[in-house]
């Protein structure tokens, strides 16, 4: 091999005289483009099927234009209002006009729901006023106050002002138990209405415990699987995977049968005298139930990456360690364990991320202190129909997960993780 020829500056040159670096860049660029071209359909699919819906949903958490779209005139007036002075006649007139419009387009319910979230009791104020809006005449201030005295209340107008802002931090604030005021300030919600922060903390706590328990239970199982002869280990692997063949709902319900106070486990406790018939253990419909059921359900997700990593650790390492005088424990701890860390990382992250957004199981067996943030996202999606708040909570959850992922990358390193 000869070195590439160099020009006067000592820069390496290719056969045709162009600088070698440039030629290499060109050659690589072409192959990169070709690779990109092949991957494009897949990237587009990922983009449109995964990213776009998530982004759209997250945007809902900071954007809600229900009020601005359906009450256009008063929205303009509210934008100029300073939140402290008396509402003007122009504002009342615009409101009256918008009420008529909203009644005709059958959107008054949406508007009323929107404002009602800011101030309870305004829903009926809107629907009632809208029904009479057509007959109102100037001066609108007196006319509206004639319909309901509440229209004179400045708090109602503040609620309108908050609602009229389409791009708003109000939902994000609410997701972390803050209240966004009309004047742009934040304050903590009153004590008896604070709930989300506590739930985020509990969700993280449950996820961490489930991950740790999964690791403690899954590690020996994966180890056993990886050391057994192929035929036995395949059979056992099927047993590990068996739960995947039944629905999540069935598995959770099975735990209800096991753990409830008249359930199998408590019956055994009574038989063996560990509990009395009247005073059985509460193993379900609380945090204990959530932890037990979730650990069981997520266990395979811990075992599989661990197993696939352990499978690749040749037994000669441990033998080598022992031949050098290491006891079983030292050989395991100093030689085997460090090499299984990629599996722990993968299993841990997998279980943690699945756990943090777990939903059906805590809903069924969680009772009150075992429910998680996803159950509240679900509540706001399906029951209270406050999709914006649900989106904001989802956004906060996503941020927490990304942040933890970042920390993990800094501490352990993402490339030090092996999924299979």
């Amino acid at each position, binding site marked *: 091999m000869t070195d590439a020829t160099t020009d006067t500056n000592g820069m390496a040159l290719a056969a045709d005289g162009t600088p070698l670096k440039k030629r290499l860049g060109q050659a690589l660029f072409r192959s990169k483009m070709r690779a990109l071209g092949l991957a494009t359909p897949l990237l587009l699919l990922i983009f449109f099927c995964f990213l776009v819906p998530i982004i759209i949903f997250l945007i809902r958490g900071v954007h809600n234009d229900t009020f601005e779209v359906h009450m256009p005139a008063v929205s303009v007036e509210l934008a100029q209002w300073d939140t402290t002075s008396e509402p003007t006649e122009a504002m009342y007139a615009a409101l009256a006009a918008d009420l008529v419009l909203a009644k005709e387009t059958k959107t008054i319910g949406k508007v009323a729901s929107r404002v009602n979230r800011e101030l309870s009791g305004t829903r009926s104020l809107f629907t009632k006023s809208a029904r009479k809006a057509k007959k109102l005449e100037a001066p609108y201030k007196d006319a509206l106050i004639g319909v309901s005295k509440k229209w004179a209340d400045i708090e109602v107008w503040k609620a309108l002002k908050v609602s009229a802002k389409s791009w708003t931090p109000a939902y994000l604030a609410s997701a972390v138990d803050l209240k966004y005021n009309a004047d742009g300030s934040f304050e903590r919600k009153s004590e008896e209405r604070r709930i989300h922060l506590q739930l985020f903390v509990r969700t993280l706590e449950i996820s961490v415990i489930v991950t740790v328990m999964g690791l403690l239970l899954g590690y020996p199982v994966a180890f056993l699987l990886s050391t057994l002869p192929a035929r036995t280990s395949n059979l056992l692997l099927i047993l590990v995977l068996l739960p995947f063949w039944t629905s999540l709902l069935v598995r959770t319900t099975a735990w209800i049968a096991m753990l409830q106070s008249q359930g199998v486990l408590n019956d055994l406790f009574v038989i063996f005298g560990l509990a009395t018939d009247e005073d059985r253990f509460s193993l379900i419909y609380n945090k204990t139930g959530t932890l037990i059921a979730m650990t069981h359900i997520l266990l395979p997700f811990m075992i599989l990456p661990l197993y696939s990593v352990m499978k690749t650790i*040749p037994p*000669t*390492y441990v*033998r*080598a*360690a*022992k*031949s*050098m*005088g*290491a*006891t*079983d424990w*030292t*050989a395991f701890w*100093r*030689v085997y364990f*460090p*090499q299984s860390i990629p599996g722990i990382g993968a299993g841990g992250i997998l279980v943690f991320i699945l756990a943090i957004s777990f939903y059906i199981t805590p809903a069924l067996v969680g009772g009150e202190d075992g429910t998680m943030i996803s159950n509240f996202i679900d509540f706001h999606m399906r029951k209270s129909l406050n999709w914006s708040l649900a989106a904001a909570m989802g956004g906060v959850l996503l941020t927490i997960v990304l942040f933890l992922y970042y920390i993990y990358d800094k501490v352990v390193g993402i490339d030090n993780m092996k999924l299979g």
Partner: protein
Amino acid sequence: MAATISGDGSVVFDRVQKSYDGEVLVVKDLNLKIDKGEFVTMLGPSGSGKSTCLMMLAGFETATHGDILLGGRPINNIPPHKRGIGMVFQNYALFPHMTVGENLSFPLEVRKMGKDEREAKVKRALDMVQMGDFIDRRPAQLSGGQQQRIALARALVFDAELVLMDEPLGALDKQLREHMQYEIKHIHENLGITVVYVTHDQSEALTMSDRVAVFDDGIIQQLSTPEALYERPENAFVAQFIGENNTLSGVVQAIKGDAATIKLDDGTVTEALAVKCGDVGNRTTLSIRPERVTVGGNKTKNSTDAKVLELIYLGDHIRCRMNVHGNEDFIVKVPNSAGHTHLQAGETTTVSWGKEDCRALDA
């Protein structure tokens, strides 16, 4: 230092048997005595049970029957980590998550050795394999040959009296392998340790060992010095396995002392050295090394006509395939010396050999 029992490094296998599945004996009846400071190689085809023997010695497999003695003491019930045996694995088994230095200091750490002493020993061991500059590298950053040296150093660093090596050079290219053979041999000589070495490569075994145990089918076929092994194979397997070998088969007609009269399958009668041919009437295989056959010359009792079938020019000698007594794969090496016989394919010539170079072995 942890109490280990490798003692003076001598090893005895006493009627050792091993079966993995309770049906087949992988090791049948192993009797082997290895003296302190000896370099003994277990040589045999793949699957012949060599590694199994080594693993029993290291303590990772238990003997189904029989005793293994180390320094005169039976070790059947002693766990591997108390045996104090150094070991080099085929794939080196260097710990990927530790640096070279950490790999070497591992056996010292588990022996609770102080830091200074550890560092000194690690350095000495690395210098011994000329790898002193690589102390902070990770195994993945080393070439195969370098990894091999580290593995060797690691097996030696804790001053084991007995070192086991299971095909340690198997993954290296030919040149490097030959180079390492000499290095291992030198280290062995310098340190005076006992080495039990496993390989399926006969030239490796012959180059390095004091004695070679040829394995086949779970038993030692022959245990002797490299020279004896080549010159005086005791059975057809060894003759076939070690070096190149021509065979002729026939039936024993008469035996007188160490001289046997054999009637070959083509009806000719010839003389041979009776080694393992059994009694009169037994079938036997005659083994003749190619380089012991002379071409041309006068007819003697042990000479015959041979038809030249093929000639291959190899520089220092010419390899000649002939038909001798009906065996069409009979190889003769004609030295490319001044004035040697020039053969032509298709011509018929005379080949002859000494009676003592024609060994009558088992059929």
